[in-house]
């Protein structure tokens, strides 16, 4: 899809981040890994974009590249990453470093491994201030206590003097969020922020991210493999498969009018209360190797609806209306028919 189409998706608001045909290829001894194959996405100000896909679909690599954490030294990168009018791929490392933390921040999947085990939590948050601003150690510490309080950690003063292993999983993720929010970034990238947490804590953390988003006026990219998670918290959703965006739309497009067999599979594998089905329907087969992608549509070997062109032509991500696009050869009417018949309608 072109950047123009991406622009049409989702809520209104000024464009903050725009990826246009981003390609990331890692040369390895076994061959070239096509981790990201032509991804175009857009995030508007104040929007939450959900990026859904299974492991290896390229969702994390895409946003690590945005942050400049996948570098040109490690991978072949092409395309553009437009952030507030400047192409991040053309920025020197110094510039990128000042953007990281300042303008774009990231939180990681497992807060225990993402926090430094031998530094006090308060010191770690203070580090972010000290790395970017001229500030005394005492000021930075006071700020980090304030942040811990803001993200709902009780006794922030005492807690700031503790080490990560003395925190519970949920509190660690809160501390990570505090760290990410330190410099009031415009964009928060949350890479599976709740995967390592208990279900009850998951909800709290997602609510916290929502609340912080409103408070700071940020945009959020929520990377997850769980469509159930993004349902409540995202304005628009991009579904990724084998390094490509295969469906893109606002939340209702994906949940009520999905146009891609892979998304249907994901929707059908979410357990729901009150549904008659005894068994969940899994997507058959395994994701393809990124070194050796199948010809045509990457999903065709697993797709129950494949037909003539699927193993020959790569389907383009085409808009079906203003803000909904999918990459599938099936005719639109056919997609709508199958969706209403075979996919369990939500809510």
């Amino acid at each position, binding site marked *: 899809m072109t950047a123009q189409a991406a622009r049409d998706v989702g809520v209104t608001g000024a464009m903050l981040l725009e990826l246009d045909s981003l390609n990331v290829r890692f040369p390895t001894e076994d061959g070239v890994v096509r981790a990201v194959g032509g991804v175009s996405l857009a995030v508007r100000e104040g929007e939450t974009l959900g990026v859904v896909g299974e492991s290896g679909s390229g969702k994390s690599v895409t946003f690590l590249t945005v942050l400049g*954490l996948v570098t040109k030294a490690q991978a072949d990168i092409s395309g553009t990453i437009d952030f507030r009018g400047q192409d991040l791929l053309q920025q020197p490392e110094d510039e990128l*470093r000042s953007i990281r*933390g300042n303008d774009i*921040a990231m939180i*990681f999947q*497992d807060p225990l491994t993402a926090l*430094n085990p031998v*530094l006090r939590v308060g010191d770690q948050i203070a580090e972010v201030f000290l790395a970017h601003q001229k500030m005394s150690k005492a000021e930075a510490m006071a700020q980090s206590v304030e942040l811990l309080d803001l993200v709902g950690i009780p*006794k922030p003063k005492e807690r700031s003097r503790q080490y990560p292993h*003395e925190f519970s999983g949920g509190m660690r993720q809160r501390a990570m969020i505090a760290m990410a929010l330190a410099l009031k970034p415009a964009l928060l990238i949350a890479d599976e922020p709740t995967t390592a947490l208990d279900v009850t804590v998951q909800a709290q953390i997602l609510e916290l991210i929502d609340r912080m988003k409103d408070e700071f006026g940020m945009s959020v990219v929520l990377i997850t493999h769980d469509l159930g998670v993004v349902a409540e918290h995202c304005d628009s959703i991009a579904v990724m498969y084998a390094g490509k965006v295969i469906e893109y739309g606002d939340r209702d497009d994906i949940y009520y009018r999905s146009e891609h067999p892979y998304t249907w599979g994901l929707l059908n594998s979410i357990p729901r209360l009150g549904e008659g089905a005894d068994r969940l329907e899994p997507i058959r087969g395994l994701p393809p190797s990124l070194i050796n992608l199948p010809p045509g549509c990457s999903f065709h070997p697993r797709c129950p609806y494949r037909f003539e062109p699927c193993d020959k032509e790569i389907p383009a991500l085409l808009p079906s209306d203003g803000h909904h696009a999918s990459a599938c050869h099936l005719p639109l009417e056919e997609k709508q028919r199958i969706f209403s018949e075979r996919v369990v309608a939500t809510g």
Partner: protein
Amino acid sequence: MPDATEEFQRRQALKEEAKAEGSLHDIPLQREVAAAADVPGAQLPPGVDRELADAAGAGIVIASQRELAWRRFKKHKAAMVSGVVLIIIIIGSLAAPLLTSYTFSETDVTSPLQGPSMKHYFGTDTLGRDAFTRVLYGGRISLLVGFAVAIIATVIGATIGAIAGYYGGWLDNLLMRVTDLFLSVPFLVVLILGSLLLGPGVLDTVIILSLFFWMYDARIVRGIYLSMKEKEFVEAARASGASNRRIIFREMLPNAMGPIIVASTLAVAAAILTESVLSFLGYGIQPPTPTWGNLLDDARNLAVSAPWLILFPGIAILITVLCVNYIGDGLRDAFDPQGQGKSL
């Protein structure tokens, strides 16, 4: 009622903060505290005494890595005893003027080569100098050289190792080849040549020895950094915009401190030994400044006629090196909770 409990904790925290802090926040907080105080008993989980709840809430246990290591170190008996003995030796040589009425260069030709007695605990040498005094003062130099070399070598080695391990690639290759080069030089020969070039002073000896003691630290630290740089917290630090220098020294170095401390402790022992070898060969620090090494050198022709002159400095070196090694051993166990066996 998780909500009530949380709210209660939050208010308790506010209350404590108000107590702990000064006037600035007093006014708004006072109100909140008052509100907290007004909260009826329903805010507390049933059956919980308010005072008890207060006390329990305040008791957040803080046990740092360092404290845990110290706890494990205390269990290592040999290391603890060695620590005490080493401290006594250090204090002894620092407090030398208080422990003896002689000076280390004061000769007394009327009483040369006397055996140990109440007047001269360790006897006297050919010039009638008090051997006890000379061993004490010699300890100053030997210990100073040992610790100074260990510190300098550790700083150089850790920096080189950290840079090599963190950046990898050609820089790693270059630095490690230099390290190999230093390791493959017959270092006693170079030390002797170096001391001839630089001179026999304390500072010269420290510099020369430091140049040949950093390689072990460099290798250890490089290995640690190689594996650590893949950890997520390093990536998280990078994602928050930390510079490479900040990541290497502020984020990663504290994680490598355990092995570094162990290595540098062992370097103290090795440096003390090497200094005494150098001095014994006559290329180290020159008399009349005594070191344990040159005391041995002085006494080598008298090993049979005046064995005490070789015995006491020798024992001093032996005990010190033994203690330092045991401490290093204890530290290794302390910093490595997974390490099962005692490495002896």
